[in-house]
């Protein structure tokens, strides 16, 4: 092993612009950084980085490293849908195998099955899903016009619908109670779009219950149309006009929660504003209409039309935090909340069964996993001083986050010493990044 002084490395970097699309990144104290392939990270605190810049691996002192970012895998990880929060704040994604009064068995994609003592558990959230896309279009020239006599003047090209003047088309979907509606708007000279959703798509001009998205020279607005007066009410507005988008493109995302009468607007990937449907009954239909209101001669385009599932139940319940630290708490997807003791989670078909004892029943409740939103576990004595923070924080591609008092790398595996769980071995490719806080003391190495 040949140690190269850091200053020489920096000189090499400054004279050779090296870009590697498949390389780990090492950030050092100050603003220095290197790329390469991490080949080892030893207990003695030395990191070896194989770099095309040097014939031999570069040895770096770990106490100089602040962050390691690893090469993304070639295939994206399918994140499990259950999130476990540990008592120290770490997060583990996985699926629950079973639970008894002593421990939880969590099947993780990267570390395999883990047996976790109950005193290390803080909360469990179920169905932390990545949204599922159930429509991604337009698919072809007939997608929005087939069997639709009112459709006119929208044309299909390059995965988009475009028109050079007034145009309209519509399509029926089986929209769930909560859904995300995304689309990209493009315009040539001026933007003048009207898009309806949750629309019954009646063929009459009579008022109906639906939502309207309007984007034109006056800005952006989402309105509620009602079948009975008042016909229109504003849900939310944005004053930015089309001229304020130099690229003449706007990515729109509307998350519709019809159960709670709320609409969440995102523009170009950024959260903008939340609107609330002012009427007690929300539109329940599933139609969408695309309308180009611009004058003839002005091209407008709609592309990347997507419909996705949307479920914010778990995040809402997690905001309730731990209601009672001396008892377990279970919150169902229908907002019921029980205090008591979670006796077991046992495999069953079609879903696991949670046995939960409350004070108000002789026998424990038997709750299907499908009905459970969030669990909070009894917390140990909170008056004790917190443990000192661990020097390492490891992020996985599946959104898990693990603290480590020490860790060592090989080309295939990472072994870390978790402050609550002890030794854990992970696949090396499961790690997205590693943070190191050099001011914290390293603990004894992993056995």
């Amino acid at each position, binding site marked *: 092993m040949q140690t190269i002084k850091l200053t020489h490395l920096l000189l090499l970097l400054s004279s050779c612009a090296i870009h590697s699309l498949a390389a780990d990144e090492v950030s050092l104290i100050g603003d220095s950084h290197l790329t390469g392939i991490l080949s080892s990270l030893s207990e003695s605190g030395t990191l070896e980085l194989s770099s095309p810049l040097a014939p031999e691996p570069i040895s770096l002192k770990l106490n100089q490293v602040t962050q390691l970012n690893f090469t993304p895998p070639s295939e994206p990880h399918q994140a499990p849908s259950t999130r476990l929060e540990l008592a120290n704040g770490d997060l583990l994604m996985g699926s629950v195998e079973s639970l008894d009064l002593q421990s939880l068995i969590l099947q993780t994609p990267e570390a395999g099955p883990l047996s976790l003592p109950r005193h290390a558990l803080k909360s469990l959230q179920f169905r932390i899903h990545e949204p599922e896309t159930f429509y991604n279009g337009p698919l072809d020239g007939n997608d929005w016009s087939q069997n639709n006599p009112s459709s006119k003047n929208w044309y299909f090209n390059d995965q988009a619908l475009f028109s050079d003047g007034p145009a309209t088309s519509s399509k029926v979907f089986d929209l769930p109670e909560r859904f995300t509606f995304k689309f990209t708007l493009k315009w040539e000279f001026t933007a003048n779009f009207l898009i309806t959703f949750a629309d019954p798509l009646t063929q009459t001009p009579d008022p109906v219950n639906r939502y309207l998205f309007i984007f034109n020279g006056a800005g952006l607005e989402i309105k509620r149309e009602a079948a009975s007066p008042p016909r229109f009410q504003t*849900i*939310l507005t944005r004053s930015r006009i089309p001229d304020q988008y130099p690229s003449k493109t706007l990515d729109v995302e509307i998350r519709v929660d019809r*159960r*709670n*009468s709320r609409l969440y607007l995102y523009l170009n990937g950024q959260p903008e*504003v*939340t*609107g*609330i*449907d*002012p009427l007690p009954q929300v539109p329940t239909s599933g139609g969408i209409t695309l309308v180009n209101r611009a004058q003839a001669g002005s091209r407008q385009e709609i592309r990347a039309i997507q419909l996705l599932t949307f479920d914010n139940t778990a995040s*809402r*319940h997690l*905001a*309730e*935090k731990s*209601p*009672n630290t001396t008892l377990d*708490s279970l919150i*169902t997807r*229908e*907002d*019921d*909340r*029980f*205090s008591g003791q979670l006796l077991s989670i046992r495999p069953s078909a079609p879903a696991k069964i949670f046995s939960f004892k*409350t004070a*108000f*029943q002789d026998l424990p*409740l*038997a*709750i299907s996993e499908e*009905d459970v939103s969030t669990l909070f576990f009894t917390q140990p004595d909170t008056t004790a001083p917190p443990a000192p923070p661990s020097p390492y924080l490891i992020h996985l591609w599946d959104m898990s986050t693990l603290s480590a008092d020490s860790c060592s790398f090989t080309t295939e595996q990472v072994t870390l010493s978790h402050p609550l769980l002890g030794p854990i071995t992970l696949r090396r490719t499961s790690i997205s990044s590693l943070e190191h806080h050099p001011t914290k003391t390293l603990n004894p190495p992993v056995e």
Partner: protein
Amino acid sequence: MILRLTLLGFFQIALLHAAESPDLLRFTNGDQLHGTFQAIHPGSLITWLREDLSEPVVFKSNLLRHIVLRQGRPAQPLASLASVSLINGDRIPGMLTALNESSITLQTSFGDALTIPRDQVSMLAPSPTGGRLQYYGPFSEDGWKMVSPAFPDGLPPPSPEEAESVGRWVFSGASWIWPGKIPNTALLRENTLPARSIIRFDLDWKNQLFVAIAFHADFTKPKPPSPDDPPRRPGGFTPGDPAVLPLLFGNSYVLQIFTTHISLFRTSINKDGKGAIDRIQLNGNPIRIGDSGKASVEIRCNRPSGEIALFINGEFVVQWSDPAAMQPGPAPDLMKGNGLGFLVQTNEAAVKLSDLMIAEWNGMPDSARSLQVDEQDIILLANGTDRFSGRVTAFENDQIHVAAKLGNFQIPLAEIAEIRFAKNHLSTPAEPSPENLTIRFSPFGQISGAPLTGSSSAIPLKHPAYGETTVRLDSAVMLEFHPPLNSIEDWDADH
């Protein structure tokens, strides 16, 4: 000369007796008369006694607004806070004794048992707020104060000269009314909030709603302006000017409620004695308050942790966490005050504040979609955390039986704070009789019906839902003759 002195003396004695008379009668035309309530008769006749009258006088109740008994103080406060709320707005003090699919029976705190059809009952509250009530009213002006930028220590007694220069809240029966003239007078109540509090109240308004509610206010005064400070406009603060908020409330949380959205601020008086405002919520949260001109507002505030939750008309709106509470290190010096204040921030918009309840809160956030749903009964436990939905089926052995999706529960009545019955299973309230009388209790509660012959100790009422019941007046503080079906019409009678 002797006759004149005698008459003068008699008049002075009469005045003295009038001042000591325990009850107060207010008429719909604004007149009022001290004296003693004697009796009520069929045909809506009230017998009233004054020492300076040779015999009791009889008034027709259709000209009466209300009678305040014993200056708004009960002879004997209710021993229990348990109550049953009806769809017509009555909140009857009493404890549940029987329940089945069709009716609810309670032992009232003021008389006999009462059996009510179940579809008339919107809520059972065996232990509302877990029994930690701090205040309910207003039934008198006691403990309330008005301030403005011109009078930071309190408004002086009203005078004819001030009519065009100072706005005042008006106390009327069981409510405070802001008439909508001459802005920037706040209504305050000091030393009233526990560290973790639920503040629940009803608002009625005309035109649009723009009201600021200050809570955990310490009413610290800013330094008086120095000669070097730029002069304010001759008219003072314009309606809606947020700069007035720290001047009126000191260090405080301030929730602004508009008809369409809300905002939350933290006001403060810095070390230089100047007022400052920080917005806690970046974007005004939209709300659905409706066009009815009436809303029920509930604020839950955990002052030590900085967590605040808002419900409007029983529906959860939003939760905030004060960023100042999230800073690492020792807990920052957050709002230490325990005062409450109200300020209407728009011109020509009358507002009525009533049914204010202040209770201790256990501090738990609650993100339930609503405290009442359409198809299911909701059972909220007194521990402030547990919440069940289902169908309440029976009451046996002091336990409420609930048929829920996850099974059947038997919950001791003593562990239940409230049961809110499914909206879709409720009837619609009947039109009240023209002779309708509402009897209000202390600390809270009311019952209404057509009065039969009664005395100063008890009045029988007749109601289409539960028939006849006799109400002892030991715990009553007000007899209201025209409970407003429409608050706006009621205000028109006075303003």
